[in-house]
């Protein structure tokens, strides 16, 4: 079995004059939690839906679990799980019956009751889906995404609208799946979600990859320049440097006592991220 689950080269998707995806190359090894991070309309969902075999691509090549997602069939779909971004209607049946029904589609399904338990809906097993809260409804989506015991799970903005505690519980659920060896592709516009869950983060804006790295070293964070700032002769001075310690030592020699209003600042992940996507505002409508 190949160690690469997703292999994409030069992927493009064009709507009219708009390149929703403007040439993406990436490769995801088995067992990785891979996150697409970007603003609305960046091309995340379009890219992921091409990989899910839902949308057609305009150009480039894509291999998912060794197959072209545009033409792969039922046996391939049995190996993936999808949690869609948009609200997706479920049959009007109690939660456990809905999960049980979808379990019947897969040759290697989990026990439906265990999955209901696993996503934290055991108390709601007999409730109708339209009586669930937004967060519970999303858990049902996740239950249906994982019921077939997928090798590869797509999660498209799974925690939008969650309160902080629900989000934290959800993250633990995803980590549990990752520990079982499930490869996970997560799209999110929450930085902390990508930072918490992902092995690698792919920042995407205006249909292009802006950065692709581990959360810790994203955008050269580890070695990024620091900004040393202080006040001198009534004005604010700033120096960007890779050696802030040396700068501070020099300043220390120049001033008799305290360096006035000294600050040393390294960019946070958020600042790096915002810098990456700054020049890439695109209309909301491509986010669908």
């Amino acid at each position, binding site marked *: *079995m190949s*160690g690469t689950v997703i292999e994409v080269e030069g992927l493009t*998707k064009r*709507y009219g004059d708009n390149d929703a995806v403007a040439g993406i190359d990436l490769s995801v090894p*088995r*067992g990785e939690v891979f996150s697409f991070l970007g603003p609305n309309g960046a091309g995340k969902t379009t890219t992921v839906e091409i990989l*899910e075999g*839902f*949308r*057609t691509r305009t150009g480039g090549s894509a291999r998912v679990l060794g197959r072209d997602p545009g033409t792969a069939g*039922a*046996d391939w*779909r*049995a*190996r*993936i799980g*999808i949690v*869609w971004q*948009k*609200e*997706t*209607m*479920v*049959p*009007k*049946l109690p939660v456990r*019956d809905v999960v049980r*029904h*979808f379990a*019947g*589609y*897969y*040759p*290697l399904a*989990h*026990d439906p009751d*265990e*999955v209901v*338990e*696993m996503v934290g809906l055991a108390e709601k097993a007999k409730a*109708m889906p339209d009586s669930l809260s937004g967060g519970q409804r999303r858990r049902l989506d996740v239950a*249906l995404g994982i019921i*077939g*015991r*997928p*090798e590869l799970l797509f999660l498209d903005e799974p925690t939008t609208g969650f309160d902080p505690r629900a989000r934290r519980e959800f993250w*633990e*659920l995803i980590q*549990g799946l*990752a*520990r*079982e*060896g*499930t490869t996970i592709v997560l799209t999110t516009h929450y930085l902390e979600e990508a930072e918490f869950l992902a092995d690698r983060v792919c920042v995407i804006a205006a249909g292009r990859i802006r950065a692709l790295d581990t959360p810790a070293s994203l955008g050269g964070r580890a070695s990024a320049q620091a900004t040393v700032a202080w006040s001198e002769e009534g004005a604010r001075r700033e120096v960007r440097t890779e050696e802030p310690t040396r700068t501070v030592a020099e300043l220390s020699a120049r001033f008799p006592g305290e360096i006035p209003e000294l600050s040393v600042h390294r960019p946070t992940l958020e600042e790096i991220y915002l810098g990456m996507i700054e020049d890439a505002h695109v209309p909301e409508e491509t986010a*669908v």
Partner: protein
Amino acid sequence: MSTPTTETTAVPRTEGTVADIPRGRPVGALRIGLSRGWMEIRSFGREWESVVFTFSLPTLILIMFAAIFDGMFDMGMPAVDYYLPGIIAMGLMSVSFQTLGTAIAAERDHGALRRVRGTPMPPSSYFIGKTVLIMFLASGQLILLLGVAALFFDASLPTDASSWATIVWVFALGTVGCALLGIAVSSLARSAQAASAVVVVPFLVLQFTSGIFVPVMALPDWVLTGASLFPLLWMAQGMRAGFFPDAMAEMERNGAWDLHMVAIALGAWCVVGLVVTLATFRWKTRKDG
């Protein structure tokens, strides 16, 4: 956190734990289709609005016509007998054309179709499920109308086998044709809300032009010519052939039951409906590219 299976306990992330389990063959299309059929029947029972309005409307109309119109006009028979065949045809079109046209548009608009396309369900299973649902609803509709007519209004139902044979084949051909037409129409609608207009308005027009409420004899020729392009007129004519005494044939447009024409028209709608459905059915909305 507990893990869901006994064979995959919490292990460190290694080369494809989940991938190493043999998956076997995909689940068969018929099995998933029948499972969907059962699921559709169960969830239809949960939709009270559609049960009450869509499903029981023809029965309500039959009750009103049988009670109010009885003896009001010279129909040559009690009102219940006179209206029963046409209302059965209308009821069958309601549970097939109207139910599918609106339900599939809603499923498309609200992502239910997108969801099943993300599973290993073969496309044919979806249609097998719909077939099971429609046959269930159509049989229920027929039994309900016959039961109400016979029990409460003492309708005289056919007693010979050949009349019932006519009723059965008109039932089957008409329901299938209307169901396919409903699936095709669902693809025309841009949204779930638009679907109810696209479905209900033409259906209402057909009810008044196909000899359901207004006798065929009373309708202008051009109206009948227009209505004869659609299945409802032929279903009603076929049902009358089954339920009415043979002498009533002279009240028809050509003074005869013309069952061969009924069969040709309904058969043609099955073929056309199937072709149009296969050519236009979309799992996505127009926005999904």
